[in-house]
């Protein structure tokens, strides 16, 4: 989108849609373990996820665009997360927050699924155990960058 002389903004409809979608990515309220407490701190006024337009944590997957897997995924929780991901409306994104969600972290044992990407397609991995709130904020800006620069999303991307 560029500014024309008469203060008109011209741009492709897809870009406008992507700009709108990227500036209000609504996460799903799903806190698993320690990373969920850091996710709460990101929601609190000091780190304030509202600046990125993601402060509305929707409880139902029907109204959420972003699933933040915040914590270790136990064997019993695996199918639940798969079902929640399937029940989210398209287009949807996944942030794998913390070492446990990304790769099993310090728990290399029978009880933890070694990386949530064996269950749901992950868009951004956030390192850290737990990641500092800044790490999560940067991850959300990466998601926004993905949307604006032609990843999933937009209007005409039928596939």
């Amino acid at each position, binding site marked *: 989108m560029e500014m024309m002389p008469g203060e008109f903004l011209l741009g492709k409809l897809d870009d406008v849609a992507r700009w709108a979608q990227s500036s209000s990515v609504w996460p799903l309220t799903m806190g698993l373990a320690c990373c969920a407490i850091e996710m709460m701190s990101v929601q609190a006024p000091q780190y304030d996820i509202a600046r990125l337009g993601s402060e509305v944590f929707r409880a139902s997957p029907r109204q959420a665009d972003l699933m933040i897997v915040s914590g270790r995924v136990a*064997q*019993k929780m695996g199918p639940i997360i798969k079902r929640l991901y399937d029940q989210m409306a398209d287009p949807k994104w996944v942030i794998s927050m913390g070492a446990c969600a990304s790769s099993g972290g*310090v728990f*290399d*044992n*029978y*009880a933890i699924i*070694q990386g949530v990407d064996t269950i749901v397609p992950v*868009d*951004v991995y956030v390192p850290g155990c737990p990641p500092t709130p800044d790490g999560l904020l940067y991850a959300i800006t*990466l998601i926004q*960058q*993905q949307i604006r*620069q032609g*990843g999933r999303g937009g209007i005409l991307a039928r596939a």
Partner: protein
Amino acid sequence: MPSSQSPSIAGTALDPTSVRPPVADAEIVRVAPAEVRETLVRLKAEGCSMLLDVGAVDYLEREPRFDVVYHLLALPAVAASVAQIGTPRRVRVLAGVPGNATALPSVADLWPNADWAEREIFDLFGITFEGHPDLRRIQMPEDWQGYPLRKDYPLRGPAREATPRPAFALKSNVPAGTPPAGRVAAALQKQRERGPADDVVRDTGTGEKSST
């Protein structure tokens, strides 16, 4: 071994509970599985009103193999101040359960909080409790095979124990002298092409397409 590569040096004590450290943490009562229930009833009558915790330990080489440990605390069942409580009596009842007859009477009727504790012992150790209102797995999924906290249960689960750990994790098992491969080789190659002089400062401008 998840993080430390060196194997564990063998322990010395076959039955650690027989060696008493110089610690006065509780009165120890060791009973045979047959008289566990009446000991607990007697202790409860004597005033040990709260069942703090029910735990289990698997001593693989020792006979009887399992130890089910009941921790009791004598608290007044009425409103009481700190002074009245003072240092309450704490009792630890150890019941040795043989490996082949893993069954104990349940105490869920004496103390309702034993319900989940006993279910967890059944789930992770395979020790059944007769008379338990609803004995089924509590931590693991319903259809899980095996009892994870037993010493002969592999740490990473039977399925994954068969598959060796990925090579890059165990530095020690890559024999010395093997030429680098995959990404490492590519990175080294790129380094050579770039040459030492122009150390590229990663351009972090927003316009650049981020590596997602």
